[in-house]
């Protein structure tokens, strides 16, 4: 940089969090001889409104072209001070946050001198990096007003309707030959006894009235290319070789869950009269009047809860949270049809949370008996000579004595497990959590977005959900899609990698490094060189160190900036 820079440095006390352990005045003093540091100030709270105004005034009056705030972690306030720069008409990427709180004062509370010295080095590094900063502008990409919904269960169908209603075209891709997923197979569901297949029929009828929704069943997404807001997808329908190509702006993944399949012998699974929850629900919904199983009236039912869920470390440790309510509701349906039926619920805590608590109360009023068994003493299930299935359990409320319930039917209350979607997961590069479900960016604040821009997750593919929660997350994905697609364009972070074509030798080592497939080889002036799609690049920096020719730079963190930072950090301390 030939021209001298005009940089403002602000060192924050953080009300004592920093200044108690770091001599902030000494940090300020360290820059008094730097001609390019025009302003060097200390401040009680850099993030305070008044300080922000002072910074804006300084930037404007003293014509600053770089800003450094030495305070806390960039996770906390980088956006705050980028905003300050923006409001003062300074390019936000001319701002550098230096973390002297977590990295100096808090880390070295026993060494004021050392902490101060370290803080000076850190600020110097920040200043050095800022001196070499160049103005960066957000990348603007056009977006396509179409969303692909992968999965035609209740979450996907409802999301499709929501997307269509705000003016986006939708393509639903469903692997099964028919729409509806799990809910489509269910009869009366909790809490309001509306039938699952009726609800799906209603959604499908609604979809039929919306021409902007197209449906591909018996279909599988096989490829995705393009960049954020402009994806090109290919779908294989009915197993045919010819693929259906669709260009979409966003993708909503709503692929649902699988029901846990117990192992042979797990709580007697495999014995006649031992059913999983989905099988039991099918049995209940397939007839009227008193429940029968294989032609015989069912007089006593024992439910064993938490099968395949809340397992010890290494297993499925999570709770599927729908199964308590679903089972309690099913038991009410059974009791309503036969008041003489005996129902024993063997559980490890009943989690009919929120309004579903009323179902629990109703089931008890209808005669259901709840028995909590200790975690280390699970029930055992065995066939008896007289044709019953005997469930032996220790009821924590009664004592340590074993009780044996002669049941006609034992229902293993099986929870949700992640569906095996390896192909789709690899194709979309979806992040998978330790539990096997897809991960969102932030469980509270960004619950349906994934780290893959433009790809949302909704419903139980993200983790166990009730049908209503699945629908809610489907509609959240609608909002997120709308946020990206309704403007017609999107702004992306400019902190991406670029290739210096002159220096590139075309070795292609970077191409395989990129986890986002952002790098490709092109012909330029008769030779192969690498090029990076700014829309696809996430700015992770993975490619830069791979390049032997130093032909790749990460904007905002260029090699020159990083070298200058290191030199600033390691410069001899002023004494």
């Amino acid at each position, binding site marked *: 940089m030939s021209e001298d820079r005009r940089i403002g440095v602000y060192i924050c006390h953080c009300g004592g969090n920093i200044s108690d352990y770091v001599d902030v005045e000494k940090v300020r003093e360290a820059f008094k001889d730097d001609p390019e540091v025009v302003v060097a100030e200390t401040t009680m709270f850099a993030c305070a409104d008044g300080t922000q105004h002072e910074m804006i005034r300084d930037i404007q009056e003293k014509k600053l072209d770089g800003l450094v705030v030495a305070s806390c972690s960039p996770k906390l306030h980088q956006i705050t001070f980028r905003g300050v720069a923006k409001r003062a008409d300074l390019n936000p990427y001319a701002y550098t946050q230096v973390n002297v709180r977590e990295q100096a004062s808090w880390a070295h509370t026993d060494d004021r001198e050392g902490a101060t010295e370290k803080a000076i080095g850190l600020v110097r590094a920040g200043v050095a990096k800022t001196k070499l900063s160049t103005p960066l502008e957000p990348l603007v990409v056009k977006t396509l007003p179409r969303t692909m919904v992968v999965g035609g269960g209740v979450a996907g169908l409802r999301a499709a309707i929501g997307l269509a209603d705000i003016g986006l075209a939708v393509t639903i891709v469903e692997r099964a030959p028919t729409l509806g997923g799990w809910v489509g197979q269910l009869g009366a569901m909790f809490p309001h006894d509306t039938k699952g297949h009726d609800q799906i029929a209603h959604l499908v009828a609604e979809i039929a009235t919306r021409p902007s929704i197209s449906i591909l069943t018996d279909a599988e997404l096989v490829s995705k290319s393009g960049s954020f807001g402009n994806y090109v997808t290919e779908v294989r329908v009915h197993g045919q070789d010819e693929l259906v190509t669709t260009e979409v702006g966003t993708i909503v993944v709503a692929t649902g869950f699988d029901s846990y399949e117990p192992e042979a012998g797990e709580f007697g699974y495999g014995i006649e009269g031992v059913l999983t929850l989905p099988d039991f629900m099918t049995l209940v919904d397939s007839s009227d009047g008193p429940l029968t199983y294989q032609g015989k009236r069912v*007089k*006593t039912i024992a439910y064993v809860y938490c099968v395949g869920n809340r397992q010890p470390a290494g297993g499925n440790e999570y709770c599927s949270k729908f199964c308590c309510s679903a089972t309690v509701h099913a038991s009410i349906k059974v009791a309503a049809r036969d008041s*003489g039926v*005996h129902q*024993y619920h063997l559980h490890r805590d009943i989690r009919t949370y929120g309004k579903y608590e009323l179902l629990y*109360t109703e089931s*008890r*009023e*209808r*005669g259901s*008996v*709840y*028995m909590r068994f200790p975690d280390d003493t699970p029930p055992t299930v065995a066939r008896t000579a007289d044709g019953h299935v005997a469930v*032996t359990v220790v*009821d924590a*409320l*009664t004592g340590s*004595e*074993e*009780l*044996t*319930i*002669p049941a006609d039917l034992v229902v293993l209350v099986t929870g949700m497990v992640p569906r095996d979607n390896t192909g789709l997961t690899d194709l979309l590069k979806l992040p998978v959590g330790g539990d096997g479900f897809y991960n969102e960016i932030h469980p509270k604040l960004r619950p349906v977005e994934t780290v893959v821009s433009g790809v949302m997750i909704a419903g139980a593919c993200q983790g166990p959900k009730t049908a209503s929660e699945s629908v809610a997350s489907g509609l959240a994905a609608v909002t997120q899609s709308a946020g990206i697609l309704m403007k017609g364009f999107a702004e992306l972070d400019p902190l991406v990698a670029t290739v210096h074509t002159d220096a590139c030798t075309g070795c292609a080592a970077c191409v395989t490094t990129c986890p986002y497939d952002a790098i490709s080889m092109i012909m330029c002036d008769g030779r192969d060189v690498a090029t990076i799609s700014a829309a696809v690049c996430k700015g992770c920096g993975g490619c830069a160190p791979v390049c032997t020719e130093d032909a790749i730079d990460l904007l905002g963190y260029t090699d020159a900036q990083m070298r200058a930072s290191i030199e600033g950090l390691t410069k001899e301390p002023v004494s």
Partner: protein
Amino acid sequence: MTTIVDTDLLSDLKKFGAADVSACFSCGTCTATCPLSDNDGTFPRRMIRYAQVGMKDELLSSKELWTCYHCGLCSDSCPTEADPGEFMAAARRYAVASYDKTGLSRILYTRPVVGSIIAVAVAAFFALFMYASHGPQDTASLALFTFVPEGLIHWTGIAVMVVMVIAGIVGVVTMARGVAQHEKLTLAGTLGDRAALGRSVAALWSSLGVESVGQRRYREDCKDDNPLEPLYRRRWLIHALSIWGFLGLLGATILDWGLALTGVKETGTPIPLWYPSRLLGTIAGISLVYGVTMFMVNRVRHVNRAAAQSTASDWLLLVLLWITGASGFFIEAALYLPDAPAWGYWVFLFHVAVAMELMLLMPFTKFAHAMYRPVALFFYALAADRSKQNA
């Protein structure tokens, strides 16, 4: 050792009146509130749990069933309105029906119409049986034992007592064996040596003397009544007067019989009011009729938790006791009236028939609590003694 649960237990219990107990979610507020609940007995939560789960034997062998006085505090504090107090009452009815092997008790408790017909039929049988051997009705003075021969009454009474005692012993032994097993007591440990025998005698005194006749805990429980009833309406006193009255009348009858046996006085001889057996009988009669009347008034007015719900069996006992007591006074009156009124003879016949029925049905009606409660209180006293020694 695993217990096979009785899946029908809870629905069966509901036939005996435990209508709301399914609402119980075992929070234990009842146990915390219960003035009787201590180290030696925790209830009623545990009993309700036995019922819900289907642990029939454990329920029937719980001494706590019979130590409850139905003060109603548990029902007042129950957050789910499961009415634990009424459950305990229903479980006692169920226990009486279960200890009785004939099935008569179950009918009396669970089928009010059939039960009432049986009650009337039994009284009618005794009346007709004795009327069949009746003598002349003396119009000059009321010669009751000429009308119904004294020997007939005597031997019928003995026969009734024998039936009652046999049925009673079967029930009490069934219960006592169950409770002893539940409490992990052996016969040797209870009666085996001098020390054990001493403890058992003390427990027996506590059960029969202090509690049954003295009504100690019942009295203490009433201290907490809110609002505090005037003494003459307090539950313990009404109950005590009924017991004392009944025992007094029994004593007077035995005394009268004793006097006849020893030749001091022949049964039926007119005697003045101050005569010991008569004086005792009169005072006891007043006591019984007062107590039973107050119980009936309470039930009509639903004055407390215990009187809030009434079954046919509750009324059967009260009505039989009241008729026995009140008709006695009508006979007294008839004795003093000139010209020996003819209704005096009929009231006497009625009196004797109902008294016979009262005794005969004792092991099958609510009256059975007079047999089972002392057994439970005996085990309760033993348990209290044991926990005192362990402390």
